[in-house]
């Protein structure tokens, strides 16, 4: 191990400098305000959790977890997501009355980077969990709130792609019969390897009709029309139920007036085995990775309570990148003073702070390069030297 330089940070850890902090703070506030207006209550959970509980329940790969040991020898993890900790709190405390619960959070999560730089290992997620209600209205509310939050944050161009875990699973079971064979095929979808998927389907001993049904799966992308196409290739059972749910969801989203932001994509599958219904990802035009995702999950059961929930998380760092062009205007006033007029300067500053204005008090003798310093402010006042009658 080479000796570290004093400026170095662990791989993937980043500083938030004032300008970025301010931007982040403003966007977080706007989104948090929206969530609160919809009745979601914010909670906090610890940064450290047990590996055996949260670490195991979380959908994040084991090698991405930051692990450490506590004094008793238990392995701890830095929380890799917020869904698992909230499921833990919900199962042990908040669902006692068996009512719908709406929770929100904004918190940093930690995922170690294996391969290379270019991605943070610590980043902030802001999101909600709508717990203990399994209606389409609940799914719809979550997606509508997501869309509303992003619009409030100033994001103009984005898309939510919605799929359903039940559809592909049922289609595979209907045609392939066994879980093992279905899993083998689903792996190709999860790996986004459509070439491999087609080759695998074509290598199976199936009727050409069944092959066609399987090969059409990843073409099921688009608006409302996808529902009809999907019904054509599924026979019955839970797969059909999944499509009926999506149809209802579409109607709910239409009533919210947000359908222009939504598309179906039935080929979305997740490695997160805890998803049990709809699932979705959010994309912005100018960012190469999804800026958020969510879905209906049964994770709470792992913590001993039979309940499902729907939630979403938006990555604040990705959202900031997507909002890159949007400039925040903030006025900053600087009051330069010298000893003689210090009191006057303090009074002016107090007055401005009282009006909610940003005002910096700066002793003029403390600045070496006045020109460079002045450039950082939109406005300045000089209260310097002996009082003259000007």
């Amino acid at each position, binding site marked *: 191990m080479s000796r570290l330089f004093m400026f170095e940070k662990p791989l993937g850890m980043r500083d938030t400098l004032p300008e970025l902090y301010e931007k982040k703070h403003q966007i977080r506030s706007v989104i948090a305000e929206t969530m609160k207006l919809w009745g979601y209550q914010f909670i906090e959970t610890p940064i450290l959790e047990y590996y055996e509980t949260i670490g195991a329940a979380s959908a994040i790969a084991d090698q991405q977890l930051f692990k450490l040991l506590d004094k008793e020898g238990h392995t701890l993890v830095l929380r890799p997501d917020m869904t698992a900790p909230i499921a833990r709190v919900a199962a042990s405390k908040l669902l006692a009355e068996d009512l719908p619960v709406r929770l929100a959070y904004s918190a940093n999560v930690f995922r170690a980077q294996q391969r290379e730089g270019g991605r943070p290992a610590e980043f902030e997620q802001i999101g909600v969990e709508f717990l203990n209600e399994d209606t389409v209205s609940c799914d719809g509310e979550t997606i509508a709130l997501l869309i509303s939050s992003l619009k409030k944050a100033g994001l103009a161009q984005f898309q939510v792609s919605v799929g359903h875990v039940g559809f592909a699973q049922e289609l595979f079971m209907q045609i392939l019969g066994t879980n093992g064979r279905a899993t083998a095929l689903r792996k190709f979808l999860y790996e*986004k390897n459509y070439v491999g998927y087609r080759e695998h389907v074509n290598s199976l001993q199936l009727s050409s009709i069944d092959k066609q049904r399987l090969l059409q799966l990843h073409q099921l992308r688009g608006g409302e029309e996808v529902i009809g196409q999907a019904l054509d290739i599924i026979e019955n059972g839970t797969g059909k139920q999944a499509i009926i749910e999506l149809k209802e969801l579409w109607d709910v989203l239409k009533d919210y007036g947000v359908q222009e932001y939504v598309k179906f994509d039935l080929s979305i599958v997740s490695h997160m085995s805890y998803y049990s219904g709809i699932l979705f990802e959010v994309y912005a035009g100018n960012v*190469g990775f999804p800026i958020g995702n969510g879905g209906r999950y049964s994770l709470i059961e792992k913590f001993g309570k039979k309940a499902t929930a729907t939630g979403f998380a938006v990555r604040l760092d990705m959202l900031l990148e997507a909002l890159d062009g949007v400039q925040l205007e903030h006025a900053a006033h600087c009051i330069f003073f010298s000893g003689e007029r210090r009191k006057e300067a303090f009074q002016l500053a107090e007055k401005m702070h009282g009006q909610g204005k940003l005002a910096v008090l700066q002793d003029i003798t403390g600045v070496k390069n006045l020109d460079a310093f002045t450039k950082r402010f939109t406005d300045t006042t000089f209260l310097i030297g002996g009082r003259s009658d000007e």
Partner: protein
Amino acid sequence: MNSILTIAMPKGRIFEEAAELLRKAGYKLPPEFDESRKLIIEAAGEGLRFILAKPMDVATYVEHGVADVGIAGKDVLLEEERDVYELLNLKISPCYLAVAGLPNTQMNEVAPRVATKYPNVAETYFRAQGEQVEIINLNGSIELAPLIGLSDRIVDIVSTGRTLKENGLVEYERIVDVTSRLIVNPVSYRMKDARIDELVTRLHEVVVQGGSDDENSKNI
């Protein structure tokens, strides 16, 4: 909004075949395409921008979304395991990954050593065979390694087998067949779906006409 489609092209061996494929698909590529040393080439009339990358790096550009689409060998996809959609087998530049070594030799019992520029593929392959090997990472002229005793075996791309033969090496096992694939960034796949679907359809037609087997016929 932003309708320019950025395509990452692999420099070198695959480049010409890939460019020809795009031309056959009806895309008008600028004449400087073939000789230029420029790394970014615009085809303004088509709304396309090409970036010319090392073959091994194509999937990286596409995963990070700085290129929407790319043409990459299956060998690269297997090695890099990037989070990208593999949409189409372009069936160009066929070759395969193989295990090779000096004829009539056994791997070292205690610490079998394998030299390769595909450490991930090599390790995965040998592990699946129930063997733990030590990987030695090289960047080129892999054939040298067994000749001068750096390794017992190599894992490398074989197209004609000539390089192996001329260096007195033999192929022991064939790992996987390799052709070039059309890969797509997951966000672009959703946000620029119309343009990408068109590209896929047009390329697919060319591939089907060119190839005899119908493994991805009709459905794309």
